[in-house]
């Protein structure tokens, strides 16, 4: 259960990215977050990841108050291991190849060595990169890098998946495949939160759609559609 209570986030330079957000996401839900560029979608995910702290308000995940978690010690790492994150800018390690980038997520949680090989190979095949496992990020196309990021987020079978624009660099058929994958993961119990601009996909999948406008939740509809507001 993810609960946002009156959460606001103002960045140092004074940009109010999130204003008074109230939100509940139940375990096992599939949620799209939509909205114009700069409306606060990535900030919403960064708050959940505890990458940034809210200026005010409270965030609860499975009854844990993120604001009360100490930076020192193991609390934050243990919490983060529940999450799988696809960053908007991928954030792959430049000095490790595709296999090592995905395996890192497993190493971090101290997965048994013999499982790592199997799981990593399997997820790379699923995203269609089994032939590129030895390549370094700099030598991949944009879409390939994005799929490595997706594989890394999924390899640990996280409780909650946060995906920021996971199909921004992918062609329609690849995008559809990734969405199918996310749906499958969701069916196996993972809470999935996807930020996207892809109206077609959103409309086709008939999931809960949260629409942000200038830091405010402007719409929250079950089986919703992409709302394009040219303000």
């Amino acid at each position, binding site marked *: 259960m993810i609960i946002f209570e009156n959460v606001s986030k103002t960045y140092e330079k004074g940009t109010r990215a999130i204003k008074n957000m109230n939100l509940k996401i139940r375990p096992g839900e599939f949620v799209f977050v939509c909205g114009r560029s700069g409306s606060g979608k990535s900030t919403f995910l960064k708050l959940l990841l505890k990458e940034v702290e809210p200026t005010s308000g409270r965030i609860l995940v499975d009854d844990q108050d993120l604001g009360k978690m100490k930076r020192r010690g193991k609390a934050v790492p243990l919490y983060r291991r529940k*999450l799988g994150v696809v960053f908007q800018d991928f954030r792959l390690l430049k000095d490790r190849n595709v296999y090592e980038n995905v395996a890192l997520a497993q190493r971090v949680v101290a997965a048994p060595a013999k499982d790592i090989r199997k799981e990593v190979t399997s997820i790379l095949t699923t995203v269609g990169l089994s032939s590129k496992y030895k390549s370094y990020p700099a030598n991949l196309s944009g879409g390939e890098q994005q799929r490595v990021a997706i594989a890394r987020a999924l390899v640990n079978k996280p409780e909650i998946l946060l995906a920021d624009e996971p199909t921004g660099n992918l062609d329609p058929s690849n995008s559809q495949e990734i969405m199918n994958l996310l749906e499958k993961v969701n069916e196996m119990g993972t809470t999935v939160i996807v930020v996207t601009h892809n109206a077609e996909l959103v409309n086709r999948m008939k999931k809960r759609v949260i629409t942000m406008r200038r830091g405010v939740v402007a719409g929250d509809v079950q089986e919703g559609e992409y709302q394009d507001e040219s303000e």
Partner: protein
Amino acid sequence: MYRKANIRMKANRIIYCIRQGVQSIRRNGLFSLASVVTIAACVFLFGIFFSIVLNLQYMVKQAESTVGISVFFDDNLTEDEIMGLGETIQRHDSVAQIVYVSPEEAWERYKERYFADYPELAEGFENDNPLADSASYEVFVTEVEQQDAVAQWLQSLPGIRRVKYSELAAGGLEKANQLISLVSAGLILILLVVAVFLISNTISLAYAVRREEIEIMKWLGATNAFVRAPFVVEGLMIGLVGAAIPLLAVFFLYQTVVRFVMDRFGILLSVLKFLPAEQVMALLIPVGLLLGAGIGFMGSFFTIRKQLKV
């Protein structure tokens, strides 16, 4: 059973850390190289400097040991009494060695030293040793600092007419010794401070580049220990390698330079007594390696700690 599994996990963990450390060095070739070069440069300068200081101190020690105290006896002393005095002196803690100088030896030495330029002066004394009563002991002390104390003690012994020693030479050597120690300590301190500066500098640079890597690991849920371990292993290895290379270089350089100076500047050999390379290295190698490993370890440990506040 449980304990065994735990130990195996720990072992796995250590192996992973070491492997990551090695891989990290390979991956970050340029930065590892930079750190190695910096540590090597510092240890190299330290090594050269250290050898010079050791030798200077050794030379002063050598010079000190040639400064003796001459002890002259009362005219009426018998040979037995002189022997007894010798034994008393020999038993003093600060006395390293005593040598008996007979009147004949004293005159021979005297002529050699002072009449060499005016041989005509010596002729007047032929067959009539003017130093007939001047038998003496030459007393060598263990530490030049004790010179004064020993001289006073000798003066207080019964049967001793005169105690003679070069206060100036002894005092000068003692002061020179102090000065060299002080200046060396100062310079070594400066060198160490500069080294620490340079190395934390290089390591900060290297880590700034890897800040992103550290952040990503933390976002994936890595604990600080997990992130830190490979970096520290890496730092340790870089430190050891960075120290070993210049130590080797110093060893060969030292031998070459000593041989060269001995060949070319033989005339100075009475003043220049070099320590053998083995003796210098026996001290320098452990100090240097410890320095390198310490710097590498601490450098990476503290730099990474600063970066870990994500």
